[in-house]
């Protein structure tokens, strides 16, 4: 190592120190931004609670367990909406996660390089379609098609299950699940793709070197390495599904019933708030809608918390956090 050249001009060699103020003011600015987000969340929560106070006082905990929803008698309960939200979201996940992960696998592990970008672009376009458009398409194209073909098929082959019993109207829990699945497919696919792309090539090579076939490599080296992240992708999709409003409102049938049949219409927390806000004539009615909003927020938070706990028990590398 040659020694560093000595400074020749006086004063040189001491690096100029940048002024401290940009550093400090940036720190304050960043802190302020972070705090304002927290403040916003607290504010929204508080406002929701304030709006719901009347209903909370009137119905108490029974609100959550009651399936009454009757503006005429001013009796309100959240159960059908919680049920509808959960069921439609779970249907959506059951469809979208396998499809999204399979698409991501195809894109990262199988598709010829030239084909990848076009497919990715199409998927991103799907994500850019506004919710109401999915709703319209759902009402006029998807739901009739499901009603006349898919639902009939389910009824004939799996009709012995309570899930597929009962009359077929078209707008239904299942239709909502399918529409939401299509809507959360892009996010699940693109997050899964990022996760799969982050699997080191060395892992794949390790499996190939053992004489694994392509599918075995995907199974032992790619999917198992990525499983935490993929679970995270599913949770992210679930978060979207729970709060999805517009398209669901248009295809779910909007009836606050709890039915075992997926062909039956349902209602979700988000839909009922959006739908009945303008009709809420009494204070209690409005307050009940507020409380449904509160329940939706709480549901989302609880489900995310459960997901984080489950992630922790899933051993493996990589953080499952994608949110």
């Amino acid at each position, binding site marked *: 190592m040659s020694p560093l050249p000595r400074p020749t001009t006086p004063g040189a060699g001491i690096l100029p120190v940048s002024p401290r103020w940009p550093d400090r003011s940036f720190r304050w600015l960043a802190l302020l931004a972070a705090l304002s987000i927290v403040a916003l969340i607290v504010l929204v929560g508080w406002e929701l609670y304030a709006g719901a106070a009347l209903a909370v006082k009137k119905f108490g905990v029974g609100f959550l367990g009651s399936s009454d929803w009757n503006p005429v008698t001013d009796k309100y309960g959240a159960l059908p909406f919680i049920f509808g939200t959960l069921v439609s979201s779970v249907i959506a996940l059951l469809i979208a996660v396998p499809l999204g992960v399979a698409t991501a696998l195809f894109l990262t592990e199988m598709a010829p390089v030239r084909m990848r970008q076009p497919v990715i672009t199409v998927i991103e376009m799907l994500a850019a379609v506004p919710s109401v458009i999915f709703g319209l398409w759902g009402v006029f194209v998807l739901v009739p098609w499901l009603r006349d073909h898919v639902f009939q098929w389910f009824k004939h082959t799996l009709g012995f299950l309570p899930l597929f019993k009962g009359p077929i109207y078209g707008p239904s829990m299942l239709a909502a699940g399918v529409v939401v699945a299509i809507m959360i497919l892009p996010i699940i696919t693109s997050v899964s793709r990022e996760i799969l792309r982050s699997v080191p090539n060395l892992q794949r090579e*390790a499996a*190939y*070197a*053992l004489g694994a076939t392509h599918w075995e490599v995907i199974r*032992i080296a790619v999917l198992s*390495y990525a499983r935490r992240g993929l679970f995270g992708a599913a949770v992210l999709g679930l978060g979207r599904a729970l709060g999805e409003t517009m398209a669901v409102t248009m295809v779910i049938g909007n009836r606050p019933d709890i039915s075992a049949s997926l062909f039956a219409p349902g209602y979700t927390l988000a839909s009922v708030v959006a739908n009945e806000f303008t009709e809420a004539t009494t204070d209690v009615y409005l307050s009940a809608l507020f409380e449904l909003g509160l329940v939706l927020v709480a549901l989302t938070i609880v489900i995310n918390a459960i997901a984080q706990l489950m992630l922790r028990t899933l051993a493996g*590398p990589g953080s499952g956090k994608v949110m």
Partner: protein
Amino acid sequence: MVQTAPLPVSSSASTVRPSAPASKPPPAVPVDDLPAFDIQGFSLWYGSRQALYDVSIRIPARQVTAIIGPSGCGKSTCLRALNRMHELTPGTRIVGSLRLFGDDLYASGIDPAYVRRRVGMVFQKSNPFPTMSIEENVLVGLRLNGVRDRAFLQERLEESLRMSALWDEVKDVLNRPGTSLSGGQQQRLCIARALAVQPEVLLMDEPCSALDPIATAKIEELIQLLRERFTVVIVTHNMQQAARCSDRTAFFYMGKLIEYAATREIFTNPANPQTEAYVSGRFG
């Protein structure tokens, strides 16, 4: 584009001339034995870029063959061609023939997975499967082959871990994740994983370059044990290592096989001036 080969940078290489192993008898090439690999006129391209030029080499069975040469000369490429791993890189193309104990590995209808079951590989960076335990890591190759017999798996587990000199260190923690081991242990775990399927040949691409001297010494010892049962081909940048643990050495330069002879010959009396310059650290 022709890449100019950089000088061997290792400072020790220029000062310490590696000495041929003293204890080992000069390895006689078993002329009658079928060579493990018989490679004739082998060239390889990455797209339009040629990485190997007309390589012909006979790698004897149950010996350790070292591949040395400056960075970018095609050592890894050559090694990966031996079990068709290069095919994972899109756009590669080969010409020439490569036989493993007489079987043409590139014959049409030969499944690369079959080739890789016969020719195992250990990588520069250890890569145990992080979601698997130590035990699962070792046995994954057998399980892929559909072996379900518990007693047999147990036996193979111990045998492989003993062969890779890891058994004593891990026998009580077989259920811990493979990634909970130290770097050197992980590399030996990867060796155990490769050995468990009992390949005919074990390829090693700079298996010690990420390890400290003690872990390196362990792996070198291990290689000495392996040569009793397996054929080993090892790529190394460390010429002392090549001198210490190989029977034969191949020197590559810019994609060409320059010289291939008994290790002692290569290090004490190389026939080619380029080889001489490289092994003595005076390159160019």
